[in-house]
């Protein structure tokens, strides 16, 4: 018996262009969301994440495939009957109603007693810090307040699934950091199932149990943020996720008595074959070229067989970002402490076999992550 709150089965979305050709916004999407899970749809604009959310909500038709909510196929079901609550990026509050009445609106139609409705509204208003504006009208509050009101209106409802479109985009940083924490604790405490769309990986990582990375209408990887970081499925994910993202270099590979990665026009990382597990060596196989990757936090500075010129060394208060020129590109290293090195100097660096990622140069799919085959 599946616990899936939502199954998206081989879904395509094709918009018939007005004047232009059709746009294939979502391609053969398969995804299950478990009950109580918080999922982020992450990608840049046009990646298909918002189309996906709107198909789940019922505001867009599915071109092909099925959407199954709590075991019911809902392709033809109108939004209001799907038992989903959605917070829109464009807020869409009812202008003639106060913020309080906007939030309580759906509770009244759900026949909740006025007393219970008031309590629910007060509770969510406190969490989202909108108590002072409950009796104001949407036109008289700021964009950030409208966004929180819209979020509150979705969160007070009883629904099988909560859909949030860029829920924190308009908020200033301090409030965003605090509200992320509170929103997560609310969703977890009540075991709410939620899917939210964001282009901000910080937000995705902060809130979601699993993150669905989308690009070009295709789901690139659907995994925990830890897995996205440590086991990116392909080069797109590797260079999209991470702040800053993974350093990647095309490299020749010799897979023999020693395993040697020679970056084109740059340094060579040379390992004893015994340092690289057989499974990884098998995954690399007889390839002559691969793409190797190393996370900025995994670059070892001051040690190793290679050196490079420092292009910048920037202390940002709680971390240092150091860039070196490697094979005509920047290789970035990040440290939580200041790095005692000057721009223009050469600095030694190295990479442990356990921190090395290897990708296929043609398909860009991951072959290995550290000491494990992908």
């Amino acid at each position: 018996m599946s616990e899936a709150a939502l199954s998206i089965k081989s879904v395509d979305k094709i918009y018939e262009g007005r004047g232009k050709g059709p746009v294939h916004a979502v391609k053969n999407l398969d995804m299950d969301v478990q009950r109580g899970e918080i999922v982020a749809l992450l990608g840049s604009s046009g990646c298909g994440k918002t189309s996906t959310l709107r198909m789940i909500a019922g505001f867009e038709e599915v071109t092909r495939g099925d959407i199954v909510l709590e075991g019911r196929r809902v392709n033809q079901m109108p939004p209001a009957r799907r038992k989903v609550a959605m917070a829109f990026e464009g807020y869409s509050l009812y202008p003639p109603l106060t913020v309080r009445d906007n939030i309580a609106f759906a509770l009244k139609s759900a026949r909740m007693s006025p007393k219970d409705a008031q309590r629910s509204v007060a509770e969510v208003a406190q969490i989202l810090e909108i108590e002072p504006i409950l009796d104001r009208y949407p036109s008289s509050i700021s964009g950030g307040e409208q966004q929180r009101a819209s979020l509150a209106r979705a969160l007070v409802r009883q629904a099988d699934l909560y859909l949030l479109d860029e829920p924190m985009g308009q908020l200033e940083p301090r409030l965003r950091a605090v509200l992320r924490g509170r929103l997560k604790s609310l969703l977890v405490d009540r075991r709410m199932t939620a899917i939210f769309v964001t282009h901000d990986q910080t937000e995705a990582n902060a809130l979601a149990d699993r993150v669905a990375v989308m690009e070009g209408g295709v789901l690139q990887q659907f995994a925990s943020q830890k897995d996205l970081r440590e086991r990116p499925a392909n080069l797109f994910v590797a260079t999209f996720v991470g702040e800053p993202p993974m350093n990647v270099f095309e490299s020749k590979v010799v897979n023999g008595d020693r395993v040697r990665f020679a970056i084109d026009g740059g340094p060579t990382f040379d390992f004893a074959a015994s340092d690289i597990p057989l499974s990884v060596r098998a995954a690399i196989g007889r390839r002559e070229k691969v793409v190797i990757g190393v996370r900025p936090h995994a670059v070892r500075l001051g040690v190793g067989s290679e050196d490079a010129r420092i292009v910048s060394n920037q202390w940002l208060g709680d971390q240092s970002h150091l860039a070196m020129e490697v094979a005509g590109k920047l290789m970035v290293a990040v440290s939580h402490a200041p790095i005692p090195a000057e721009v223009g100097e050469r600095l030694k660096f190295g990479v442990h076999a356990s921190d090395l990622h290897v990708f296929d140069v043609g398909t860009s799919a991951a072959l290995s992550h550290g000491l494990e085959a992908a």
Partner: protein
Amino acid sequence: MAIEIRSVSKEFKSGKVLERISLSAEDGEIVAIFGPSGSGKTVLLRLVAGVEQPDEGRILLGGRDVTDQAPEARGVGMAFQNFALFPHMSAFDNVASALTAHKVPRDIIRAKVEKIAALLKIEHVLGHAPRELSNGQKQRTALARALVAEPKILLLDDPLRNVDAKLRYEMRLELPSLLKASGSTVLYVTQDYKEAMALGDRIAVLSDRDFAQIARPAEIYQRPATINVASLFGDPTINLMPVEPLSSSIGPKITIGGTALSLPSSYGRMAGKPCVLGLRAENIIVEDTASPESVPVEVVAVTPLNERTLLLLHTNDGREILASEAGTNEAPRRHGAAFARFDPETVLLFDPASGRRIVPQAA
């Protein structure tokens, strides 16, 4: 060439924008002008360029008073940049446009454009139109145009504002050395504190019509002049909470979550006076076990943030505190009861009335 802004004021119909502000930049220095939108940063650049006139005060370039001179008469190479390109010109012509106006011979133009293009790694796209360039190449082309005329003074108005996050990050790493190589004195306007810290030799924080602080990035981060400056730098924003130090036999103490915490004795004079305590998230240590002077807290939420882990803490006296730990290893960190402590030396105290930081004094 040195820039000196002396007690300059500027008012528009909508009100005073700058009030008796002063700033000097040494020859070859990069000064980041940082502040929220609408704080007058662009106006300041326009005053230096000469496209706006100050109501009062003087502007000196290379020691020469140019306040009453038109932009072209200021006698210095100056580039005022917003990184827009002419769409109908090739990248080469865009870069060269900075020189053609100065009647430079064509072979010299070509040599100069090629040299700067090599430095900025755009040699291979010089023949392309802007629409054929990637965003990164567009930025570099625009920067090349700014640098090719070897301006003694370079005024950059939030040049990375409309750039996607990835390229913005790359440019943040590369720009300082490119600007240093040009030898120009640079005023660099930005709204992004990380950009200001990464790029500026010094940062001038503009707020409420005046500079709240002008100092090196580390100084601003560690010893912000005001609550406002403290809040503008740091992600997450610094924790601020009202406290009232009390004197004790071993020095001043504050109470948070029922625990009396020692402050450095250099704050002894603040006993009995209301203060605002500023505590950076990364200076708070959260542990499972109690230690002397640790505050019992509840970990309400654990959220990753840029290879760090952010902890939302509640104290039993109703305070909400953000702590951040290096690393993203979530497994050992659970919700629920924990203890928070901090190094008293990392504490900042502010005067609630003026907002100014209270400078510790030897007892």
